[in-house]
């Protein structure tokens, strides 16, 4: 598989994980430092299924992905039960600890290669597989966001106490977001394992979690199209600007601060790149212009 296709595959894989994180952080307002851990679980469980269980080819890969996703999802339920009732920054620290704990545990399990890593995994991930899964995940994410659950999540993000008083089951909304994001991260991990054909725990450390979060932020919190745009940009840009590799993270860090302080809507500005989204934007602009015109007329009327 050649170079450009390789980049496209990486974009596609990362997109799935970033979509999940977008639902968790962008729409529900929970910040996680540990999603690398869910990717790792997805990658390792799927590797066990695809390499060690000797299943026939056509079902080995789908089973592997399903197993990886399920494992990540189940573990996220445990983590969620323990930590989602806590305040925001406790949750962050807990996820940070979770990510690191996964890495430490995996380092010590020699059955899956330990710190040495696990090589020669079968290459199942092709460009087509990634594309199909991307479309599926985007559709699922879109439907989730535009459903009652999605609106509840946004309510939790905006004003948790008020949402609770309005009857939203805050814990359940957060849990749904966490599980969905973990499952998506698990799928991404499984795809990654069968693309690079080599996995080791350092591939899923905190730097990876931070990378994913930065992609969400660049695209804009609360926008699916933003998430897609952010991922494409942040996976392909480093290739184009290889000479500035050392400064990449410096610029990213600064950009995150500037975005949060200046334009938290990120690239897409909270706008979705769909017909209804654009219509909404135009309608909002028209309404604003109309209001300003009315105000001006009123002032002139007063002056007269």
């Amino acid at each position, binding site marked *: *598989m*050649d*170079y*450009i296709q*390789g*980049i496209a595959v*990486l974009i596609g894989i990362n997109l799935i994980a970033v979509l999940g994180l977008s639902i968790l952080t962008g729409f529900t307002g929970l910040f996680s430092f540990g999603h690398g851990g869910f990717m790792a679980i997805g990658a390792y469980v799927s590797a066990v299924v695809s390499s060690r269980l000797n299943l026939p080819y056509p079902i080995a890969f789908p089973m592997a992905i399903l197993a990886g996703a399920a494992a990540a999802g189940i573990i996220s339920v445990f983590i969620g039960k323990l930590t989602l009732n806590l305040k925001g920054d406790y949750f962050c620290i807990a996820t940070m600890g979770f990510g690191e704990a996964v890495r*430490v545990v995996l*380092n*010590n399990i020699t059955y899956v290669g*330990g*710190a*040495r*890593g696990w*090589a*020669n995994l079968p*290459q199942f991930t092709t460009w087509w597989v990634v594309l199909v899964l991307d479309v599926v995940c985007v559709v699922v994410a879109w439907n989730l966001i535009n459903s009652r659950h999605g609106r509840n999540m946004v309510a939790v993000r905006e004003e948790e106490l008020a949402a609770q008083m309005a009857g939203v089951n805050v814990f359940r909304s957060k849990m749904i977001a966490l599980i969905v994001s973990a499952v998506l991260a698990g799928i991404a991990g499984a795809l*990654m394992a069968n693309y*690079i*054909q*080599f996995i*080791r*725990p*350092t*591939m899923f450390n905190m730097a990876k979690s931070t990378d994913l979060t930065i992609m969400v932020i660049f695209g804009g919190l609360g926008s699916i199209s933003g998430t897609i745009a952010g991922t494409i940009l942040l996976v392909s840009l480093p*290739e*184009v*600007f*290889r000479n500035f*590799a*050392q400064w990449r993270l410096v610029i990213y860090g600064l950009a995150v601060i500037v975005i949060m302080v200046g334009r938290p809507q990120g690239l897409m500005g909270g706008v979705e790149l769909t017909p209804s989204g654009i219509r909404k934007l135009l309608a909002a602009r028209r309404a604003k212009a109309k209001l300003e015109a009315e105000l001006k007329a009123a002032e002139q009327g007063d002056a007269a």
Partner: protein
Amino acid sequence: MQKVLYGILAAAMALSVNAQTANTVKIGWFGPETGDSALWGQAELNTVQMMAADYNAKGGITIGGKKYKVQIIAYDDKGDSVEAVNVAKRLISQDKVVAIVGAQGSGEAIPVATIVDAAKIPLVASTATNPKVTVSDSGAVNSYVFRACFTDPYQGKVAAYFASQKLGKRKAAIFMTIDDPYSTGLSQYFKENFEKAGGKVVSEVSYTSGEKDFRAPLTKIKAANPDVIFIPAYYNDVALAAKQARDLGIKQLLLGGDGWPSDNLISLAGTALEGCLFINHLDMDGLAAKPMRDEYRAKYHKNAELNSYMVHDALLMVVDAMQRANSINSVAIQKALLTCNIQGITGHIKIGPNHDPVGKEAWLIKLVGPNMKFQEKFATAN
């Protein structure tokens, strides 16, 4: 606005694609220019660029009667396996190199091995010592991967030989980095061979990479009272461990592997490593290395690192293969590498059935004051 963006993108891509002019041979390099191992990656990059400049100053290298200029195409793998796969693909499909050198980290070399085998482009690793780089889990040899260095099993054997035979130690303790396969691999082979020679490993403790306080595990080692302590780790952790060990009153001799040699080792450790020994791929202060050492210092104003010498020999292997094959075709180069038998700066390199050098000399080096003094050489069949 869109047009401007497309323009910028096109220009950037054009600048990054390297066109091959008549009679140039393109050789790729990848390694950690940034990240934790940047010190070694940059040393390698400097060296291959210096070598290419030297070849081209003489008009190029002569292959099959024609002169070819050497063009090095280099990418940063950031010490990350995913990135390594990325840049390897770029070197192969975009830049169309005929061979690749570098890949100093085993974690980066192993996934790339699958790719170069499929693409039939030979890779000569500089310091990747993990056996899995050339021989996969199933036992099959990766046909397009070679290396210029000895492997961890060999190094462990040599270290055990020195400790038991030459230094006469009977009780050893091992202090390793638990999540670094280089460290755990080396200690495993050391232990096997040390015990085979009649010694006993009285204590085996470890730490996680990134950790800086070793007092707890070192206290355990002290309680076990060994004759010698083997520390198969990298220089920055070794320096810390040595200092902390001395602080705890541990006075025993410390022995190490090829992760030790670095300019910074002694400045970081102070007097804690005085008189200690380690295994290296060459005598970096010796006569064979002197011309390159001086040239590197004159050009870059700092000392060449171990990786510089290793990648020098890796590139030498490729050039030698091209000259013997009379061709710059990758498949021909790979065939010639199978029978590689040259004298490099780091010793005699004869490629064996596993694509590793057979019987390559290991050098025992002692730290005396600010210097690294050669003690003796040792070579054995793999």
